[in-house]
């Protein structure tokens, strides 16, 4: 994901602030000493981050956690003795805290799907920083630093179980869907914590879901296919990468192809050809939502989920202006209550719902559409 580097002065909104001025304590886990050295170098450029320890496999890292008390753990996936997956499970059980899994992507085959670590409780995944000309100051390095800053503000609960439907700020019974235009398409956008949220929402949709979904997730290079495969294996609806020139079909969730912007053209077909970043993002929620608003007008539904930053605000506004429906994830169920908060503040949100309520709401919309 190409998140904009956060400057030191701006404390990101929506994040439970990391305890005042003490630096973020980071534990690095990787079986490659080389990788440890490079990560350490990258992090040394951030004054607010301190690498308090390194370990060469999960077992070693587990032993270090009680004495080091890291705020954030960055772990490799493939390691001997104890791999990143087992390690994540053990950390969640014994010392719950944010984990960022850093790994080179593996083809999206099931046995190695990196998103299994999300299941296990890791918050986020990213690709190993790429070396070469831009190694230590480059985009990958900035991405790593900004991810760690975001994760440092996340409170990890021992059991991140499925959130049961409950009383939200606006409960589902209070939502009246009458009086709105027929929904024709649903756009969902997310950043940090998004894969988990997508899993929660999409897995609840029935196979005969009557609307197409356009999904945008900020994600590190090389992971798009893995995300699609992972979600696809757990959902009744189909999840796939968008293809240029195809009209979105009902009951299918489309994600933009790796490194592209997903838009709806004037004939209602998907277009993945644009490789420009918007606001530092590619894919950008704003770009996609705005095109939904343009083509579908009041038939567009925008859902903005967990994540840091301001992507999606403009898009939500565009949908709201076009008369469409806008929904934001509530603070309670958000891993990072950043983008939803901003959108609410910008008066672009009609409903604020918990993750489970969003699933229910979408199912209703589908029902409404069938009628």
């Amino acid at each position, binding site marked *: 994901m190409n998140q904009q580097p956060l400057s030191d002065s701006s404390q990101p909104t929506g994040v439970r602030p990391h305890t005042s001025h003490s630096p973020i304590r980071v534990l690095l886990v990787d079986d490659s000493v080389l990788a440890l050295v*490079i990560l350490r170098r990258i992090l040394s450029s951030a004054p607010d981050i301190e690498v308090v320890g390194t370990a060469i496999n999960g077992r070693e890292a587990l032993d270090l956690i009680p004495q080091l008390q890291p705020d954030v753990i960055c772990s490799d996936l493939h390691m001997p003795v104890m791999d990143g997956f087992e390690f994540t499970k053990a950390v969640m059980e014994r010392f719950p805290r944010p984990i960022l899994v850093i790994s080179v992507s593996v083809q999206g085959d099931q046995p190695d799907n990196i998103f299994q670590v999300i299941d296990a409780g890791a918050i986020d995944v990213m690709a*190993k920083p*790429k*070396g070469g000309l831009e190694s230590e100051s480059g985009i990958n390095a900035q991405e790593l630093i900004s991810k760690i800053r975001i994760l440092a503000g996340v409170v990890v609960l021992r059991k991140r179980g499925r959130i049961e439907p409950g009383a939200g700020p606006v409960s589902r019974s209070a939502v009246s869907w009458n009086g709105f235009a027929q929904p024709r398409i649903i756009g969902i956008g997310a950043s940090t914590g998004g894969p988990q949220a997508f899993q929660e929402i999409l897995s609840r949709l029935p196979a005969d879901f009557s609307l197409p979904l356009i999904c945008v997730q900020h994600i590190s290079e090389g992971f798009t296919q893995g995300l699609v495969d992972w979600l696809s294996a757990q959902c009744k609806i189909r999840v796939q990468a968008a293809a240029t020139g195809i009209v979105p079909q009902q009951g299918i969730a489309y994600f933009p192809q790796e490194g592209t912007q997903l838009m709806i053209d004037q004939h209602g077909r998907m277009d993945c050809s644009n490789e420009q970043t918007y606001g530092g993002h590619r894919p950008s929620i704003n770009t996609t939502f705005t095109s939904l608003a343009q083509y579908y007008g009041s038939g567009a539904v925008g859902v903005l989920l967990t994540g840091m930053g301001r992507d999606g605000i403009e898009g939500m506004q565009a949908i709201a202006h076009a008369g469409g429906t806008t929904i934001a994830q509530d603070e309670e169920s958000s891993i990072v209550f950043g983008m939803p908060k901003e959108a609410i503040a910008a008066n672009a949100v009609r409903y604020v719902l918990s993750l489970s309520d969003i699933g229910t709401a979408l199912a209703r919309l589908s029902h409404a559409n069938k009628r």
Partner: protein
Amino acid sequence: MIEDKELRNLFKIESQERLQHLDDGLLRLEQTPADQGLLEELFREAHSLKGAARMLGLTDIQTMAHQLEDAFGAARKGEAALKSEAVVGMNQTLAAIRGLVLAAIGEGAQPAAAVEPAAPPQGVAPIAPAETPLPEIIPPTPPVSTPPVGSQPAPAAPAGSPAPRSEAFHIETIRVDPKRLDALLSQAGELTVTKIRLAHRVAEIDGLLDECEEWSRGVHSRQFAADAAGAIVQRLEHLQETLNHLRSGAYEDSTRLDYVSGQLESGIRALRLLPMSTLFMLFPRLVHDLAQELHKEVALVIDGEDTVTDKHVLEEIKDPLMHMLRNAIDHGIEPPEQRERAGKSRTGSVWIKASQTHDRVIIEVGDDGRGLDIEAIKSTAVKRGMYREAELAGMTVAQIQSLILVSGFSTTSFITDLSGRGVGLDVVRNNVERLKGTLQIESAPNKGLIIRAQLPVSLATVRVLVAMANGRRFALPAEYVQFSRKVLLREIYTMEGHRTFSFDEQPVSVAWLGELLELPESGHELQALTANPEATAVCVVLGIGEERFGLMVDDVLDELEVMLKPQSRLLKRIRNVSGATILETGEVCVVLNPHDLFRTLCKKPLVGGVAPAAVQVAPAAKKVLLLAEDSITTRTQEKRILESAGYEIVTAVDGMDAYNKLGLRDYAAVVSDINMPNMTGLELAEKIRANKKFAELPIILVTSLSSEADKRRGLEAGANAYISKPEFDQRALLDCLKRLI
């Protein structure tokens, strides 16, 4: 190349480890292509290598490692069965990655300053494909929706020989169990305690001095007389008590220090002990490749890889072991058909076994091949003029077998740079002796050959005898010293041009150490000494194998255990010196090399005596060599080397030219390239051999083709020796010429 030095070193260590694991794994995969655990491990190794390459921006390595990872991943899921051709392809990919890694860590396989600009198209068959095909995989079902990554076949480093041959084996890092480091650290902590205690002792001594001063002031101020004798006695008693206390304290300190430093030393020495597997893991690949090249079927058994030994021993023993293994496969194991005819299994077995006694490591390389041919050894010994038939008749089988360890001995008439370019097992022996080890041979015809090397576990210290010669101290390794004795100078006599002394009626050549070392002062002193008939000197008698010789010194001072510090790497070698050490006094003391001293002694004519009768024979007319080489650069270079070695050179620009010039002079040998236009070196060799007149003319092929098959072709064409260019150095060529002419 990776610019950052730290990262470069890290990558070097890491990539080499991963490549080694991959290499081993691929070998095992050939046997068990469906081993899930193995595929899992290989997958992870390839994946990690990819990750490391990515973080360094080494895109080519990343892409190729990715191909391997994909192939292992697919095979693991049972999605695509691994064909043996696919494993071959993977081996090639791995070799290519190895080449790229070498370039990345700056030990590049960049072709050495083009000796040969471009090989002409015609000539011998190509050695290896220039491209590395993707590992071939047969997918039963089309893969889900994975875009092909890097579908272009990546460029490969020249495949063929798996690793540079003459590359020195250095273990640059040692993994240490932190517990052992902790133990050392606690010993170091003990040192601090002792240090503080010593500081205390100084304070106590200061106290004593103060007391004495006070007392002496009292004496001077004449209060002394007033002091009663009782007071003096009291003071003395106090003084004595304090001194006693001081002494027992100092004794305790010294004991403690002894203990701690001993623990530290043995602890550190133990850290240097590494398992044999560090080295043995290189061999399966070597044996596999070599057996394939030589069309032999060989099973390698490795045993005792957990045996530990000093890092230095491991580094030094690598080449000898490789040499022994090559010999076993090249000369020991017979071709499969021949084995069957002899009633053996088709597959020959070669083993390498390590074991340990309390202070020695024994490494054994054995094969069940044809064994040593006593008659061939005898006839070679006679041909080389080493022994006469009659002498050989009186030798035991073991003695004859051990002749193969003697310098310049080789029973194969064809010299390849694989099994030794004019050198054979004598190199093995030298290396083993340098490590203070010994070699044993055991062989029975058609049963096989076992060579056993016994080595010390640790090398860090040596026992030496410190002797004084011309007012300087020199150390002699104690293991060579047989005894030392005072001798009367007038009892020294001359025999066969050497000073000799009879010890127990055994004549032993003796020499003054100062004289052997050409110390500046040696002249006068010697004369003065020899002028006095009753003068004596100490003679240290050293034994090297069967030989003994005596060194005359002024005195023998001490016998010590010292750390031998090798000389600077800038110096390739200093005659007579094996290193230096620091004596307790802080003085630097040179440790002498008995082997060299003996050689020097044998060469040295008597000082002051009659010049040896050997009159230098006027140099014979220069030997003429015919040199065929199409590259002008190489031709000029080789011509210069050969001329400076005293040969006269006639050059030819290709095989045809050389063949036409054959009749012009009476050549001592032909040195030829292989790849040449008009007529290749192989064709030239065949044409020369076809002519009866030149049947005995030695032919040396110098070429960049270095596979076993090429060498066999060279042999078949009638060449006597084969030197490959990557290893080409003038010494190899000159040695070879010397042996053949």
